[in-house]
C-alpha cells in the first residue's frame, strides 16, 4: 500500500491509534476516555462526566500514553486522541498509578459504607474493588469534619466522604449557573462548602446528588429510605411540567423512594429540576385521599363505596354536565375520558387547561420545533413570555448551555427579564398590552431604526425558534397570540415551542380534551385517530356554571379556585352547580366544595404515555401499587362508561382492551422501541387572525402575575420536603417606579384598584420593566388575582407608600 492510499484510508476512518496493542480509530477531536469506552475498554474515573467539561482532577483515569516521546502517564479525560498514539490501559505503570490513586483517595475516606446511602452503587467502592490495592497502609488519624451538614433544604453534605472530584461544583457553576458551592481551604483540608449564609438554593440541587461518585451528597427525601440493591426501577417521564424529562422511577417495598434523571440526548441530558426529582413525596402524604368520599349534610367528608360513588357520578354526568382539567393525566386516560364524556354522556363542555395557559388553538396553528432543532448551533432562539427557568427548568439548562457557549443567539421579550438576560443578545422589556407591539417593532423595524442586536431576527438564514409561554394571567391572552402571529408573518420559516406549565397539555390536545376542532395526523406512518371535537373554554364553562346553566361540574385533577385567573368567577361557579365531582388525590380549595371525591392514582402508580412540548411521546411507568382504594383515571373512566345511561358499544370495546386511543392504527411497540420517544407531529393549519385590544391608558402600574417554580400547587404542598420552598408573597417593582411613587425599601406598600386594596411587602428589582408591578402567582401570603377584572384586557393598580413599621 502506498503512502497516499494509506492516508486516504485514514481520512475516511478517523484517527488511528493503538489501544492495548489493537489498531483502532477514533473520531477527530475525541477524548481518549470516550474512544476507549466505545471500543469496550473501560477506564475507571470519578471526575469525568460527559455532559461537563473535563478537569482532570481525580487522576483515576490516568493511563500510559506514548505520543512518540516515550510513554507517560496522562489523564485520558483531558487527552484527545492523536494519530499513532499508543495507549496502554493495563500496563504495570497504569496499574501502579490506579493503585496509588485509590489508596490515596481511601486514605482519608471514612469507609462508613455500611451506613452510607451510596453503598452498593458507589463508583468509589466499585473502582476500589476492581482497580484498588486491596488494603491500605494508612495508619494515621483520618481527616474529620462535622458529619452531614445541610447545604440546602434538600441536600446534605458529608465532607469526610467527599473525594473532591469537582462534579457538583462544576455542575453548579457551569451547568446550572448557580455558583453557590465551591472549594474552600487547601491541601488535605480542601472541602466543598457553601458561602457563609448563602445556602445552595438552586432549582437543580438534586443533580449534584445524582452525579456525586461517593456518598458525600445525599438528598433529604431519600436519606436512609432504601438500599440500592433493594431498588427496582421503571423508565418514565417527569410530568410536573411539559419538558418531558426522562427519568427512572425507583421503588423499595412498594414505595417510590427516588427519581433519577436519565441521560436522553434529545431531551434533558440527564438533568432534572428539583421539582421533577422530588415530587414523589406527595404519594405517601398523610393527607392523601385513599377512598371515595361524599360530603355529608354537615359539610364533613365521609367514606363511601366505589359502586355508590360511580353510580352517583354517572347520574350527575347524565344531567347538564361540564368537565375541567385533565392536562396532567396520561395520554391514555385523556383519550378515554374524552370518549366517555363525549360519547357516553354527551358532555360537550370540557377543557383540560384552566384558562391560565396558552390556548390549544394557538399552539395547533404553529409549526413545532424540537429542542434539538431549537438549540442547534447557529440558531436563534426567541423567548416570548416567562423566564424558562421557572416554567421548564430542565430545558432551561440546555438553552443556557448553548447561549453561554455562544452557539445560539437569544432574544427575549418579557415583562421581567429572564435568568439569561445577561447572556442574551437582547432582552426586550415590554409591558402588558404592548407585547405584540414591541415584538412587531423588533421584527419589522428598518435596519436603520433597529438595534443591531436584533439583526439576528430578520434578513438572516439562521433558523429561528420561538419558545413561548403565557406571560401574564392578568391580561388578555390575545397579546401573546398576536405577537406570535407577527413573528410568523415576518418569518414564515420560524418554528415554535410552547412552554406549558402543565405536563401533558399537548397530550390533552391530541386526545381532544381541549376546546377546538382538530385533525390529528402524524409522521412516520403513525396515525393517531382523527378527532373532531368541540370542547369549551374553561372561562365559558365557569360563566355558564355561575349563571346556573350547569348542573354538574367534573374536576379532573383541577383546582380552578387556585388557578383560574378570575378567582371570584371560579368560586361562584362551584357554588352555583348542584354537584361537584372531583377526581383528585388531595383536598384543595376547589375539591373542598366537591360533593363526591373519587380518589385517583398518582405519578409512579399508573402506566401510560406522555407527550411533551415538542410532541414527543414517552412512557410513564407504574412502579408501585396505588395505595388504599385508589383507582387510576383509566379505570374510573372505564367504569363510568359501563354505568352510563346510553352506553355506546364502540366506546365500550375500545375501553375493554384498556388500551388507549381506540382501534389499532398506532404502532405502540414502535414508539416504545425508541429510547428518545417518538414524536407526534401536529399539523399546522391556518389560524384566525387575532387583533388584540389597544390597552386603555390609565395611571398606575400594569399588573403582571407570573409563575415561580415553587408555588402552592397541590402536589408540592403535599410533599414534605418541597412544601417549605414556596416563597412568601412580595411584589417586585422597578427602582425607577419605586422612586416615582416614593416607596421606601423595607416598608409595605398599598396596592389598590377598583376591585381590591391590600398592603403587601415589596422589593425593587431592576429586572422588572418600568411601569409594571410583578406579582407571583399562587404563593403564600396574598393572592394577586383579587385585583384582576377578567373582562379587561390589562389590569392597572395604583401603589402608594404604606405606613412605616
Amino acid at each position, binding site marked *: 500500500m502506498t503512502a497516499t492510499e494509506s492516508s486516504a484510508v485514514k481520512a475516511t476512518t478517523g484517527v488511528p491509534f493503538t489501544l492495548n496493542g489493537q489498531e483502532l480509530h477514533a473520531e477527530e477531536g475525541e477524548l481518549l476516555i470516550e474512544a476507549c469506552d466505545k471500543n469496550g475498554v473501560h477506564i475507571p474515573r470519578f471526575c469525568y462526566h460527559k455532559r461537563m467539561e473535563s478537569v482532570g482532577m481525580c487522576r483515576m483515569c490516568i493511563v500510559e500514553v506514548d505520543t512518540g516521546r516515550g510513554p*507517560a502517564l496522562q489523564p485520558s479525560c483531558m487527552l484527545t486522541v492523536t494519530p499513532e498514539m499508543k495507549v496502554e490501559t493495563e500496563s504495570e505503570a497504569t496499574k501502579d498509578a490506579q493503585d496509588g490513586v485509590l489508596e*490515596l483517595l481511601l486514605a482519608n475516606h471514612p469507609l462508613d459504607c455500611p451506613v452510607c446511602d451510596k453503598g452498593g452503587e458507589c463508583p468509589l467502592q466499585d473502582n476500589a474493588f476492581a482497580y484498588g490495592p486491596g488494603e491500605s497502609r494508612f495508619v*494515621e488519624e483520618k481527616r474529620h469534619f462535622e458529619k452531614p451538614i445541610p447545604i440546602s433544604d434538600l441536600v446534605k453534605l458529608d465532607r469526610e466522604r467527599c473525594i473532591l472530584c469537582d462534579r457538583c461544583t462544576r455542575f453548579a457553576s457551569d451547568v446550572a449557573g448557580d455558583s453557590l458551592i465551591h472549594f474552600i481551604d487547601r491541601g488535605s483540608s480542601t472541602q466543598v462548602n457553601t458561602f457563609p449564609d448563602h445556602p445552595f438554593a438552586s432549582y437543580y440541587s438534586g443533580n449534584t446528588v445524582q452525579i456525586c461518585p461517593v456518598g458525600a451528597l445525599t438528598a433529604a427525601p431519600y436519606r436512609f429510605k432504601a438500599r440500592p440493591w433493594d431498588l427496582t426501577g421503571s423508565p418514565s417521564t417527569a410530568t410536573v411540567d411539559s419538558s418531558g424529562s426522562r427519568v427512572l422511577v425507583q421503588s423499595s417495598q412498594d414505595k417510590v423512594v427516588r427519581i433519577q434523571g436519565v441521560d436522553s440526548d434529545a431531551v434533558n441530558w440527564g438533568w432534572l429540576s428539583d421539582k421533577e426529582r422530588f415530587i414523589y413525596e406527595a404519594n405517601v402524604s398523610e393527607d392523601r385521599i385513599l377512598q371515595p368520599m361524599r360530603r355529608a349534610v354537615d359539610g364533613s367528608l365521609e367514606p363511601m363505596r366505589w359502586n355508590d360513588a360511580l353510580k352517583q357520578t354517572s347520574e350527575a354526568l347524565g344531567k347538564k354536565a361540564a368537565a375541567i382539567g385533565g392536562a396532567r393525566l396520561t395520554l391514555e386516560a385523556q383519550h378515554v375520558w374524552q370518549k366517555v364524556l363525549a360519547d357516553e354522556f354527551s358532555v360537550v363542555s370540557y377543557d383540560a387547561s384552566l384558562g391560565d395557559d396558552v390556548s390549544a388553538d394557538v399552539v395547533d396553528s404553529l409549526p413545532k420545533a424540537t429542542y434539538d432543532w431549537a438549540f442547534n448551533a447557529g440558531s436563534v432562539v426567541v423567548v416570548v413570555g416567562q423566564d424558562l427557568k421557572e416554567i421548564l427548568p430542565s430545558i432551561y439548562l440546555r438553552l443556557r448551555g448553548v447561549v453561554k457557549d455562544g452557539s445560539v443567539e437569544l432574544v427575549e421579550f418579557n415583562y421581567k427579564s429572564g435568568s439569561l438576560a445577561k447572556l442574551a443578545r437582547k432582552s426586550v422589556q415590554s409591558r402588558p398590552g404592548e407585547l405584540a407591539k414591541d415584538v412587531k417593532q423588533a421584527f419589522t423595524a428598518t435596519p436603520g431604526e433597529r438595534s443591531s442586536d436584533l439583526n439576528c431576527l430578520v434578513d438572516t438564514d439562521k433558523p429561528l425558534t420561538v419558545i413561548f409561554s403565557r406571560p401574564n394571567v392578568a391580561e388578555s391572552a390575545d397579546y401573546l397570540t398576536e405577537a406570535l402571529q407577527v413573528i410568523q408573518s415576518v418569518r414564515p420559516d420560524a418554528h415554535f415551542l410552547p412552554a406549558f406549565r402543565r405536563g401533558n397539555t399537548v397530550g390533552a390536545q391530541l386526545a381532544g380534551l381541549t376546546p377546538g376542532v382538530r385533525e390529528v395526523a402524524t409522521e412516520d406512518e403513525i396515525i393517531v385517530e382523527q378527532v373532531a371535537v368541540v370542547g369549551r373554554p374553561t372561562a365559558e364553562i365557569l360563566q355558564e356554571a355561575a349563571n346556573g346553566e350547569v348542573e354538574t361540574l367534573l374536576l379532573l385533577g383541577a383546582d380552578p379556585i387556585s388557578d383560574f385567573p378570575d378567582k371570584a368567577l371560579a368560586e361562584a361557579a362551584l357554588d352555583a352547580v348542584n354537584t361537584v365531582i372531583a377526581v383528585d388525590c388531595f383536598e384543595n380549595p376547589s375539591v373542598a366544595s366537591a360533593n363526591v371525591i373519587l380518589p385517583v392514582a398518582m405519578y409512579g402508580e399508573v402506566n401510560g404515555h406522555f407527550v411533551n412540548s415538542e410532541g414527543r411521546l414517552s412512557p410513564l411507568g407504574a412502579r408501585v401499587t396505588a395505595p388504599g382504594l385508589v383507582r387510576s383515571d383509566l379505570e374510573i373512566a372505564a367504569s363510568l362508561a359501563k354505568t352510563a345511561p346510553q352506553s355506546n358499544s364502540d366506546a365500550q370495546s375500545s375501553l375493554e382492551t384498556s388500551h388507549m386511543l381506540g382501534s389499532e392504527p398506532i404502532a405502540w411497540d414502535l414508539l416504545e422501541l425508541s429510547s428518545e420517544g417518538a414524536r407526534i407531529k401536529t399539523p399546522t393549519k391556518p389560524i384566525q387572525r387575532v387583533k388584540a385590544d389597544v390597552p386603555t391608558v390609565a395611571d398606575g402600574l400594569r399588573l403582571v402575575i407570573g409563575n415561580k417554580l415553587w408555588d402552592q400547587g397541590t402536589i408540592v404542598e403535599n410533599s414534605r420536603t418541597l412544601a417549605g420552598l414556596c416563597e412568601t408573597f412580595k411584589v417586585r417593582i422597578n427602582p425607577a417606579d419605586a422612586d416615582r411613587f416614593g416607596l421606601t425599601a423595607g416598608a409595605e406598600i398599598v396596592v389598590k384598584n377598583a376591585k381590591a386594596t391590600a398592603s403587601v411587602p415589596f422589593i425593587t428589582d431592576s429586572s422588572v420593566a418600568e411601569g409594571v408591578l410583578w406579582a407571583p402567582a399562587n404563593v403564600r401570603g396574598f393572592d394577586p388575582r383579587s385585583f384582576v377584572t377578567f373582562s379587561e384586557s390589562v389590569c392597572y393598580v395604583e401603589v402608594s407608600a404604606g405606613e412605616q413599621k
Partner: protein
Amino acid sequence: MPTNNYLPHLDGYVDNEGPKIVTSRFNDPNNYKISNYKASGGYQALESALDISPDAVAAEIKDAILLGRGGAGFPAGLKWGFLPDVYPRYLVVNGDESEPGTYKDRLLMEHDPHQLIEGCLITCYALGIETCFLYVRGEMALAQERLAQALNDAYAQGYIGKNIYGTDVGIDIVLHWGAGAYIVGEETALIESLEGNRGMPRLKPPFFPAVKGVYMKPTIVNNVETLSNVPWIVTNGADKYKEFGSEASPGSRMLAISGHVNRPGVYEVEQGEVTFRELFYGDNYCQGIRNDGDVKMFIPGGGSAPWFFEEQLDLPLEAKAVGAAGSMLGSGAIVVMDQTTDAVKACLRVVRFFARESCGKCTPCREGTSWEEKILQRILDGAGRPEDLDLLLDVGSQISPGDYPKAAWEAEGLEAVPFPPKQTTICPLGPSSVAPITSALRRFRPEFEAKIAAGRTTVGASS
C-alpha cells in the same frame, strides 16, 4: 568577624562587589520614585526600543539568551517565539514569589518598580501586546504600594497608556493582587486566579499559556527578574550582556541565601563565575558558616529542589551544571544547613510546606503530601515504625513515579537522574514534596532509623 554590607533601606540585600545589572540602582534609597529613576537613565531603553521594529527588539532578547528566572530557566526569547499569530495576546508578570527562601523579586518590585514596568513595556511592544497584567503576591504590601504608585506616575507621564513617546503604540498595565497562595506562582494557576477563579493549575497540554492563556488567548508569563533584565539588554545590547556569565547562562542572577551562613541575603551574582563554596565561604559573599561549622546539606534552588551536600560545593552557580548534578538552581533560593541540623526535622519542614500549600486539585498531591507529613511527624513524635521509611518513598512514588530525582552521589556510584521528575499530578507541586524525602533518606537514613529506634524504646515497646 563578618562585615555587614546590608543597605539600610533594603531589607536583606547585600551590596557586594561585582557587576550589577538588575540591582544597579539599589544604592539609591529613593529609586522607587519616577524622578530618581528617570534621572539615572530610566525609560530611555523604552524610547530606543520604540525606534526599532518590534521583531528587532525580540531578536535582541533572544540573542541575549535571557534565561527565565522563575525556576524552570527557559530562555525568554524562545518562549516569546511560541506565540501563535492570534490577537489579542497578553503579558502576565509573575510576581507571586513564594518559594521558601526566595525574596529577590520582592526587592526588585519594592526598590526598582520602574525598571520592571519598563521591561514590561518593551516586552509588550516587542510582542504586539496591548495589555499586561502585573500579578503581585498578596502578602507583599510594600511592593504593591510602590508598584501602584509607580504605575500611576508612569501613566501620568505618558510612559504607559496611549501613544507612548508620541508613537501609535498603546499599552495598559493592570496591577492585580494575589490572595496568598503558593500555587499561584505556577503560571496556569496564576492565570486562573487572575481570571477570578480559585488558583488551581490547568493541565498542559492543552492549556499552554502561549496558546490558551488568559481568557484562552495567547499569553506570555514571565518572572519579575526576567523582565527586569530587559531594559539593560535593550540599552547595552545582547553582546554586552553575554560578556557576563557563562556561555549557556549569560548575565547575572539574584540569589537569596538563607540558613546557617554568616551573612545571609540577596546577592547579584554573575552566572557560572562563582561556585557554591565561594558563595558560602567567600568574603565577598556569605563569609562562612556560623560558628565556623560545616555544611551538612544545602538546597540549591528553592524547596522543590533535591538537596546537595558538601561534595557538590565546587559546582559553578549555573543552571546547566546544577541540572546535570541532579538538582536545579530554580528560583535562586539557596538554603544552607550546618551539621547541627536535624535532617528529619528539616525534611518535615519542607514537606509540611508543600502539604499545606497543595491546592487540592489532584488526588496524589492533595492526599499524598499530607500523608508524607503525617508519617514524618509521627517519626519525630517517637511513634515511627521501621516500615515507614519505605512507605515514605512509596507514597512519594505515587506522586512522582519511577526513578525519583536524586543528586549524583559518586561515593555511592550513583549518577544523577534528570530533573524534573515524572508526575501523576497536573503541576510540579506534589513531586516537589518528594525531593526532600528522597534526598534526606538517601543520605541520612541512619538518622531516621535512630529516631524510630529511640521512639520504640520510649514509647513503651515491650522489653
